[in-house]
């Protein structure tokens, strides 16, 4: 199984009279974008904005972000299970605009009808300043779709439509034929390598519970699947899509499609490791017994793949940590040393216990930093998406003003803190 990726990287994104790519400049005609999503948007106003890395801009109410991704030759599909018949993905040629993101912002039409667990959490993206190192996507261009639904739109419809719009825009943008620019080509494959290299699997646990807190695999909710093997190339073709609005903890769809852990293990494949692929599993199971079983099944799958070691990451926090730790424990019990990556909640003053669950088997942990430490967040010049942010159901705040809060206010911050190289450490 082999996928060829053609990466087009942009130097500039701007509005233009016609939608086209000139050299490394993407020009967008607003009318084309409106036409593209028109049939999806009865009852929803869509405002388009362009945001560039380094700008003094803050995007608020971010729900998801997607990397433009489409099959080059018309054969095959991306984002299987959404908008069309399902096919297996992970082969052929996929083109990407690799430093552009389609970012959807907005508020659900009827927040009072959502239970506490369903309510989206506030997530902001700061393109510069202190927050940039905590904001997923701060280093890329954004085409922002700000959605304003009328009250007649149901929450269920809004949830589906925002995803459909993002995925459709993501496919559309790649159809704009770049001219005179060479793509950077990447091969996503796991060819046979020196059998003496240690065999390593990636355990990839996602949050999947119910509407607004779920993840899709080929369009199916992961909560209705068992731990399964997924080839890295399938991720790059959009086999895993986020429907999770637990903002700071979520793995955005763009990250599912280009996960730095997968890229790192692919880069080391054949050099220092024999990368076996990914085990996709579900966090946030409802009972301890279910959490334990999920861990046992992951460990059995890893064992049958022949894994001698594993790297494990999870989406979420608290509740999901128990599933995660049961998985780490089960892998270690199977004799598969497992390095697990997590954020810590040491409290604003740093003295609280770092993790809600930490069995002694989890002896090789990597930290992403203390997510409950307060930081001063200065204002940026422009705010996109609204003028009132929700400080996690405790208070509201005008995002044009400075505030003191922890990294949980930033979209995709748990992932981004890891990418930024943050960790927690005892104050010397």
């Amino acid at each position, binding site marked *: 199984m082999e996928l060829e990726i053609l990466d087009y990287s942009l130097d500039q994104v701007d509005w233009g009279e016609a939608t086209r790519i000139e050299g490394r400049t993407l020009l967008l005609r607003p009318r084309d974008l409106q036409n593209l999503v028109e049939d999806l948007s009865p009852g929803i106003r869509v405002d388009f904005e362009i945001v560039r890395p380094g700008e003094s801009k803050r995007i608020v109410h971010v729900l998801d972000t997607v990397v433009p991704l489409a099959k080059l030759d018309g054969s095959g599909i991306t984002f299987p299970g959404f908008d069309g018949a399902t096919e297996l993905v992970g082969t052929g040629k996929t083109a990407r605009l690799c430093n552009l993101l389609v970012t959807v912002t907005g508020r659900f039409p009827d927040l009072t009808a959502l*239970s*506490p*667990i369903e309510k989206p959490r506030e997530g902001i993206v700061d393109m510069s300043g202190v927050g940039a190192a905590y904001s997923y996507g701060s280093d890329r261009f954004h085409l922002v779709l700000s959605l304003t639904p009328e009250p007649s739109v149901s929450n269920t419809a809004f949830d589906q439509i925002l995803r459909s719009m993002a995925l459709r825009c993501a496919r559309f943008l790649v159809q704009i034929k770049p001219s005179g620019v060479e793509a950077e080509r990447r091969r996503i494959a796991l060819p046979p390598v020196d059998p003496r290299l240690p065999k390593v699997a990636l355990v990839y646990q996602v949050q999947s519970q119910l509407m607004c807190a779920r993840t899709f695999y080929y369009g199916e909710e992961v909560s209705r699947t068992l731990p399964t093997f997924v080839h890295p190339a399938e991720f790059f073709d959009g086999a895993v899509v986020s429907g999770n609005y637990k903002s700071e903890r979520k793995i955005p769809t763009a990250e599912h499609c280009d996960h730095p852990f997968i*890229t790192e293990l692919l880069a080391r494949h054949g050099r220092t490791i024999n990368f076996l692929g990914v085990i996709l599993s579900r966090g946030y199971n409802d009972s301890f017994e279910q959490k334990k079983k999920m861990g046992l099944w992951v460990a059995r799958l890893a064992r049958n793949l022949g894994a001698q070691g594993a790297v494990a990451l999870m989406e979420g926090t608290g*509740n999901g940590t128990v599933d995660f730790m049961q998985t780490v424990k089960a892998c270690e019990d199977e004799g598969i040393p497992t390095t697990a990556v997590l954020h810590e909640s040491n409290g604003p*003053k740093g003295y609280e216990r770092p993790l809600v669950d930490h069995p002694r088997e989890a002896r090789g942990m990597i*930290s992403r930093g203390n997510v409950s430490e307060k930081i*001063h967040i200065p204002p940026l010049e422009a705010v996109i998406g609204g003028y009132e942010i929700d400080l996690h159901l405790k208070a509201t705040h005008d995002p044009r003003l400075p505030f003191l809060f922890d990294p949980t206010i930033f979209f995709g911050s748990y992932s981004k803190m890891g990418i930024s190289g943050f960790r927690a450490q005892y*104050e010397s």
Partner: protein
Amino acid sequence: MVKVIHYLNQFFAGIGGEDKAGHEVLFLRQAVGVGGTVENSLKERGVEYATLVCGDNYFHEAEEAALAALRAAIEEFQPDILLAGPAFNAGRYGIACAKVCSWVRDLWRIPAITAMHEDNPGTREIGRGVFVLQTGASTASMPETLKRYLQFIQKLLDGDERGLEALRAEFCLAVPRRFTVRTDKPDYVRATDLLLARLGGQTYESEIPQIEAPSHAIPNLTIALADARVALVTEGGLVPKGNPDRLESSRGSRYFKYSVAGRDDLKQGEFQAMHTGYDTSTVDRDPDRLVPLDAMRVLENSRRIGKLHDHYFVTTGTGAMPSKMAELGAGIATEVADAGVHAVILTAT
């Protein structure tokens, strides 16, 4: 020339004792009380001294107003260094010293030094980068503590980082606290490196220490179960429909009790779960599955237990800090014990 501002409570500023604990913030452009000793010792280097005085109760009851007054004073005086205390084992004073130091250090990035005894509850409020000198429990250690303040100030003025670290190691309270730092490698590189080190049989260090939760002995039931009064307690956020007391759906800061007297079960539509940490739809359909009133009535009627307590207790555990939950738990425990409850069934989510 160094500008030092010193935070004192009403007692150490010589204003009065407990009767003056409600004193508002006072900003004086001179040294007061123990500040005089520090000022005198710094005279040779050149010093401008100011004092902030605040009553212990005032700080706690009107923290926002107190901080606003402190902010105005600090913006006017533009200090180079903040001192607070020493607070010894005085709890309210220690908390105020720690909070003021943390707040000033965070906002103005100037060095902040305070001092207290290791048992002072203020040790739980120390922010990042604040120097907290260890003192004895009483004012007997005052002269020595003032000497330490001076040593720290001198090292700070000399820019002697190494000397400062040595002083910190020797004289500061060792309260293990974890904060975010930036490494030069992202998590995916460190994770793979650590795994390879493990697989290669090399030494490695986990980045997250394993900290055992404090253990609690389970008390024996002091009475026959058939005579015992049993209470239901949950952190699952179950409240009467409409959430009349506005229990938070995450990071609960309070607990509530609700009567179940005269009820045999908790009906759908009359109760709801306020909780962002688990899928609450099952509980919303049948609240007894979180607070099992129906089952307890069966046990009560069949005399397996003596009596079900008339109230159940509830908070929301998700996202909350363990220290906060310990505080709420202690409150619930005291209340049920005082009500003559012998045993509790605690349902967690």
